[in-house]
């Protein structure tokens, strides 16, 4: 027995020494970048899609003979939990060989981790978290974001609706973070383009009856009812609007862009508007190229909605490193100045908070029981008309 044990111990020591040697042998000129997203847990599909997309960007760059460096991407799992997020952020940021990172799908995690990036001076580009405060809640020069936020969504929405000729609004929003955020930012953006808000109603996320609010809305007679909230109460409000005879255009946010909204409402969903960050993959400037490459790479799972953003974020990081060299400070400075950078999700320009100013927002309209991109819809080309126009 003792003999077998000795042999086993010897074997383990050989393994140990062997693995140490292989690490040393591989030491070539390499640049490390990191990816952080939720790889396990409830939203892991999005995280894995983002990881694959970022990996694709790195693989394509490594296959390119004109690239100056060989890139290695380490990907870390934040589990969509802020405490784990801070841990992995520390892991990436404390590793001096990691030059930059594409980080976070979950807003709460991003909020927790941005302080860590600032503390360690690691430049990052957020690829999925949508909460405005991730970039606007601080002055961290390290933090950037390629995807849009509620702010961009409402900016596009307000401008679009004013351009259509609408003048007066009533806002109904749920009292969650989501609804309240939309209320604030839509109001702000609407003031800029000169629309008028006649009334404002906060409703709880499980409210059933909206007769009181809608009777008041009918009295105010706005052109548009703006609804900031999710599908379930959106459906109820739209139904009860009809019952009470509120004849206003229904404008929603990304929260109602679901098939459930259309299926439950049936014909009543006709002409409902919704705005969402990102775009269907075939509408993106580089969408075709991206899907081709993604399919060719043979990943097991799909890239999901934010995959292209992760790809674009990683590509921007790699381009910047190619440009200024693998130095965190230089990369950060260069990223702060990004203006008019061409990516597969469209042009990227960072404002002084590192937020992409020209984030892709897509307008959708309910048409024959489907969400159709506004420009392709019969409403867009004038065949059908929205209410009160």
């Amino acid at each position, binding site marked *: 027995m003792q003999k077998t044990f000795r042999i086993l111990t010897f074997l383990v020591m050989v393994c140990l020494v062997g693995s140490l040697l292989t690490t040393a042998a591989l030491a070539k000129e390499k640049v490390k970048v990191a990816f952080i997203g939720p790889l396990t847990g409830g939203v892991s599909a999005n995280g894995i899609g983002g990881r694959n997309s970022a990996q694709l960007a790195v693989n394509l760059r490594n296959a390119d003979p004109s690239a100056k460096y060989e890139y290695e991407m380490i*990907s870390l*799992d934040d589990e969509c939990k802020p405490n784990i997020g801070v841990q992995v952020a520390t892991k990436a940021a404390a590793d001096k060989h990691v030059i930059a990172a594409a980080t976070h799908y979950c807003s709460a995690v991003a909020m927790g981790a941005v302080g860590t990036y600032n503390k360690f001076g690691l430049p990052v580009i957020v690829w999925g978290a949508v909460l405005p405060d991730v970039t606007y809640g601080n002055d961290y020069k390290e933090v950037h974001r390629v995807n849009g936020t509620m702010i961009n969504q409402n900016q596009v929405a307000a401008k679009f609706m004013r351009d259509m000729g609408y003048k007066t609004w009533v806002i109904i929003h749920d009292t969650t*973070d989501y609804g309240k955020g939309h209320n604030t930012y839509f109001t702000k953006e609407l003031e800029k383009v000169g629309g008028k808000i006649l009334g404002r109603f906060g409703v709880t996320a499980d409210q059933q009856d909206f007769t009181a609010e809608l009777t008041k809305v009918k009295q105010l007679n706005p052109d548009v009812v703006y609804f900031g909230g999710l599908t379930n109460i959106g459906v109820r409000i739209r139904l009860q609007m009809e019952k009470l005879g509120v004849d206003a255009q229904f404008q929603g946010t990304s929260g109602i862009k679901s098939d459930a909204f259309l299926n439950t409402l049936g014909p009543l969903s006709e002409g409902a508007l919704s705005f969402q960050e990102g775009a269907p993959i075939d509408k993106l400037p580089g969408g075709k190229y991206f899907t081709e490459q993604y399919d060719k790479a043979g990943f097991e799972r799909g890239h999901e909605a934010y995959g292209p953003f992760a790809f674009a974020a990683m590509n921007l990081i790699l381009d910047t490193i190619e440009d200024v060299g693998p130095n965190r400070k230089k990369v950060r400075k260069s990223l702060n100045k990004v203006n008019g950078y061409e990516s597969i999700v469209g042009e990227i320009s960072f404002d002084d908070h590192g937020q992409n100013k020209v984030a892709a927002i897509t307008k959708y309209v309910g048409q024959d029981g489907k969400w159709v991109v506004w420009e392709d819809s019969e409403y867009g080309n004038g065949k059908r008309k929205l209410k009160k126009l």
Partner: protein
Amino acid sequence: MSNKIASPSLPISLAVIALGTAFAILFLGAENEYLIGSLLVFVTLAVVASSKFNILNRMYATFAVHEVLMQAAIVVATLLLVAWFYDDHFSLLMITAAMVYAIAAIGLNIQFGYAGVLNFAGAAFLGIGCYTSAVLGQYTNLPSMLILCLGGLVAAVIGTILILPVLRTSGHYAALVTIAFSILFKTFLEVNDVLGGPQGLNVKPTVLFGWNFNTNIEIRDEFEASFYLCYALLALFLLALAFIFTRRLERSWIGLSMDSIRLDETASACYGLNIALWKSVAFTFGNFLIGVAGAMYGQMLGYVAPSNFTFGDSLILVSIVLLGGIGNPWGVITAASIVILLPEKFQIIQEYRFLLYGIVVIFILLYRPKGLLPRQLRNYLPGGMKA
């Protein structure tokens, strides 16, 4: 609890601790999958070998005889470990996180292991500690150490709400009460704007004698240590305090009463023990420790959000106690290190890491169904059990 009689041996025990420290240093520093894999294989073999040579039982015996010395040896070993990684932020963060979870699990151990009060809301009490230090740090100028205590106090006070339902029910039903509280707690935080809603709150760092724990320690440009070093030392200090306290508690007549209540309520009541009193004491004191751990965790991470404190996180705390061996603080500390560090080391296999981690835990329990280090016979006095 093995029936084999093992003789204590100081040299062997000290050697095992030294080896354990060396292993921890290697494991924490390991970055590539082969090294981590071989280390895991190595530790499995080491454990198999030590049970062959009856080393674990000899360790137990040594601990019983030279208790203070052995405990000091482990503190020194931890200090060495912390010193080794003095400038490695990440490793220090992980060591500290493991210690914080160990403090919380020791609190849970008093409830579970001593008095037999089930608590599936550990993460909620951890959260109460975190939020207390967030709110107090933001609105008051109280010293950090006081905030740590208050974190524990608030957790204990809020825990008293649960005492009545927990005492009235028993077994599975008491567990259900705490599960409900755990879910309620998270929902409450999410809808409550004053506490930051789902976005969470920033937490001020620990400040002690004017020294901000979030600044790196620098001595004349030549020496620079990670700011997590302070947190690691603070966590070690708190862990030692918590450990000493539970050990004293366990050995006192209070611990004896608790054990008796856990084993047979009716018999204890017949002998005149106040069951409600000792269950409440265990529950409250356990929550206090969890709250202190939470307050410290919050100050270290600098940020709290409700999604840190889900029912799943409560289960992790419970699993630490079960994996370590119910009732043994040493087991709890060992298990906390495994539960915190192992998934982190499995980051290299990305989305499959929890799969592998789950398998490892199942295997441990398969071969050690009473946990890693099951509770030993009561030892009334240090060194009292001379072999």
